[in-house]
C-alpha cells in the first residue's frame, strides 16, 4: 500500500504503530505530551496512549536520557525524544558513558535497547545554539548506531528498525524535512541497519550524502547532468555503521568522489568517509575527493549568512565541476 505523506507523518506513523504493536514501547521527552511535540510529531498521542506511555519530562536531558537507558535495562523499549540535538550535549555523558558502554563493561550481560530521536540541523535562523549538526560526533562512539532518514520511507521504516535493535540507536530528523512530502509504501521490505541506498546512478562522480543534503545533491546532480557530468548520488542512511561496500563499489565505477554533509567541515563525517576511501580504494581515485560541509562558524542568525554557512545545491554543483577538472 502506498500513500503520499509528510516526513512528520511518517515518523509519527512509525511511532504510533510501534506503540500499538508492543506494550514495552513508550515515548518520553520534553513536550511530547500536552504540547504535542515541539515539531508536532506526537500531536494527539497523549490522548491516544495516555500519560503512562507518552511522558512529558521536565527539562532534565541528562536524567531523562539516563532514565531511558535504565528503563531499557529494565525490559522496556523506550523512545527518548531529545527536543533537538543542541540539547543532547547535556545528555552526552549518559549516552557515551552509559548507553554505549554498559554492554561492554558488563562483559556482555546488559544490553541497552534504547532509541533516541533528535531533531537536527540548521536553516531556520535559530542561530548559534540551536543549529548544530552533530551526527558525525555521535558516529564516533563505539556502541552506538546512528541513523539519518532523508526520505519519508526511511523516516517511517527506521523507527521500527531502531526499536528492533538490541542496542542503543540514535535517529536524527532534520528540522527542514518535517513538512516535505514523499511516497510511503507500508509494505516495503524491512530495512537493515547500515545499508546505503543509491538514489541516482551515474558514472562520472560519486556524491555521498544523507539527510537534507540528499535533496540538494539530487538537485545538483540534475544541473551537472545538463552539463554532461553524470553523478551517482548515494544516501548513506546510517553513519555508524557506514556502508563501506556500497561506497567503494561506486568509487570503483566513477573514480571521483564528493561528500556532502551539514557538519562543520573539520572533523565532520565527510573526513571519515574520505579516510576510508583513501584506505580502501585509493588506487581507484582519479582526482582528489571534495567535500561540501558547513563553514566553520557558529551558525549566524541573519538568513543570508546562515545560508552562506550551510551546504547548498550551488556549492555542490561548483564542487562537482571542480572535481571533474582535476586529474
Amino acid at each position, binding site marked *: 500500500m502506498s500513500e503520499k505523506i509528510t516526513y512528520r507523518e511518517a515518523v509519527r506513523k512509525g511511532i504510533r504503530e510501534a506503540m500499538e504493536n508492543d506494550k514495552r514501547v513508550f515515548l518520553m521527552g520534553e513536550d511530547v505530551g500536552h*504540547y504535542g511535540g515541539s515539531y508536532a510529531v506526537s*500531536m494527539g498521542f497523549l490522548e491516544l496512549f495516555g500519560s503512562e506511555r507518552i511522558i*512529558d519530562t521536565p*527539562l532534565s536531558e541528562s536524567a531523562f536520557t539516563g532514565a531511558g537507558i535504565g528503563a531499557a535495562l529494565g525490559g522496556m523499549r523506550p523512545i527518548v525524544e531529545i527536543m533537538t540535538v543542541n540539547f543532547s550535549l*547535556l545528555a552526552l555523558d549518559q549516552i557515551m558513558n552509559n548507553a554505549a558502554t554498559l554492554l561492554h563493561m558488563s562483559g556482555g550481560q546488559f544490553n541497552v535497547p534504547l532509541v533516541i530521536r533528535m531533531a537536527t540541523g540548521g536553516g531556520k535562523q*535559530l542561530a548559534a*545554539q540551536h543549529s548544530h549538526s552533530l551526527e558525525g560526533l555521535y558516529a564516533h562512539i563505539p556502541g552506538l548506531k546512528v541513523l539519518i532518514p532523508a526520505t519519508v520511507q526511511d523516516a517511517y521504516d527506521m523507527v521500527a528498525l531502531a526499536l528492533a535493535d538490541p542496542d542503543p540507536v540514535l535517529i536524527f530528523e532534520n528540522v527542514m524535512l518535517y513538512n516535505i512530502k514523499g511516497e510511503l509504501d507500508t509494505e516495503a521490505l524491512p530495512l537493515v541497519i547500515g545499508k546505503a541506498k543509491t538514489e541516482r546512478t551515474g558514472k562520472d562522480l560519486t556524491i555521498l550524502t544523507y539527510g537534507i543534503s540528499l535533496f540538494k545533491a539530487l538537485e545538483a546532480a540534475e544541473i551537472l547532468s545538463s552539463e554532461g557530468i553524470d553523478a551517482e548520488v548515494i544516501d548513506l542512511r546510517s553513519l555508524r555503521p557506514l556502508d563501506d561496500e556500497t561506497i567503494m563499489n561506486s568509487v570503483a565505477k566513477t573514480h571521483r568522489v564528493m561528500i556532502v554533509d551539514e557538519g562543520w567541515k573539520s572533523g565532520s563525517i565527510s573526513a571519515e568517509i574520505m579516510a576510508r576511501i583513501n584506505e580502501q580504494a585509493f588506487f581507484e581515485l582519479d582526482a582528489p575527493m571534495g567535500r561540501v560541509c558547513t563553514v566553520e562558524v557558529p551558525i*549566524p*542568525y541573519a538568513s543570508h549568512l546562515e545560508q*552562506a554557512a550551510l551546504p547548498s545545491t550551488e556549492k555542490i554543483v561548483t564542487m562537482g565541476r571542480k572535481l571533474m577538472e582535476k586529474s
Partner: protein
Amino acid sequence: MELDLAREFYRKMLLIRRFEEKCVELYSKEKIRGFLHLYIGEEAIAVGIMDALSPEDAVFTTYRDHGQALARGIQPNRILAEMYGKVEGCSRGRGGSMHLFDAHTHFYGGNAIVAGGLPLAVGMALADKMMKRNRVTVCIFGDGAVAEGEFHESLNLAALWHLPVLFVCENNGYAMGTALEFTESETNISLKAAAYRISSRQVDGMDVVAVAEAAQEAVSEIRAGNGPVFIECLTYRFRAHSMFDAERYREKSEVEEWKKKDPLLLLHQRFPNIDIDKYETEIVQIIDEAVDFAENGTLESIDDLEKFVYSCEVIP
C-alpha cells in the same frame, strides 16, 4: 511609591508591550525570523528588576529577552535591527531575537539553552568578588530552568562561595507546553532555592512595584556582602510560547483570568493619574523609528561570514 517612578515604570512596560506587538506584526511579514518569544504579560519583572540595578551591574537572561533588553536601556533601534539580522543590530545580526547582547549596558545575552546562563552569572559574580568590584550580577531564567542540573549546580556554587548574584525566576507556570506541576515535585520554587541556604522569596510578578521593592531589597543585601538572593516572580505569558504553538496545553479561561492581572492595568489602577495617551504617542514614534532604522540597516557582507569565530578577526 512616588508618582514619577510609577510613570516611569508604566512607560517602560508600555514600551515593551508595544514593541512586542510590533514584533508579532513584523514576524507575520517575515521581517523577523527564527524563534520569537514574547514578553507580553511579564513586563513588570524586567522593569522592576532593572530599576534596582546600577549601570555597572551585569545582566544574564534567556531567549525571552526583549523585555529585559529594553528595560536595561538598550535602544529599541538596535534591538529591532538585530531581529532584522542587520549589522546595526546589538549583536550585529549574528544573534537574533534569542541572543541580544550589549557591552555598554553589561548585557551578556540572551542565552537559548535553558539554564545555560546560570553558570555564567555565577562566574561573573566570582570575578567581581575576586576583583573586589561592588557589583551585582542578575541572572534571569524561567521556571523550566529549575529542573536542569545546572540550576542546582549553580545555586550551590553561588551559596557556597557567597557570591553577589541575584537569581530571578520568571515563573510563568509553563515551560513551553508543560505545566510546572508536571516538571517539579516541589512547585514552590522559592522553597527549592532556600534548600541551598539562599535567601529566597516569592513575589507577585504582575505587580511592578512589588518586584521593584523586592529587587531593591535584594540588591542591597547582596551589595552588603550577604551572598546571593533568589526571587521567584509569579507571572504569566499572555501569548504563545513562541510563534509556533497550538496552545493545546492550557485553557483560554486561564489566560483570561491572568489578563485581569495585566501589569499595565494593575499599575494604572493604582496610579490613575498616569497619562497613558502621552506615552502611547511617544512610544508609537519610538517604535516607528526603530522599524525605519532596522529596515534601513545593512546586511553584513557574506565575505565576513567567518568573522567573530576568533578574536583576532574582531573588527575594531
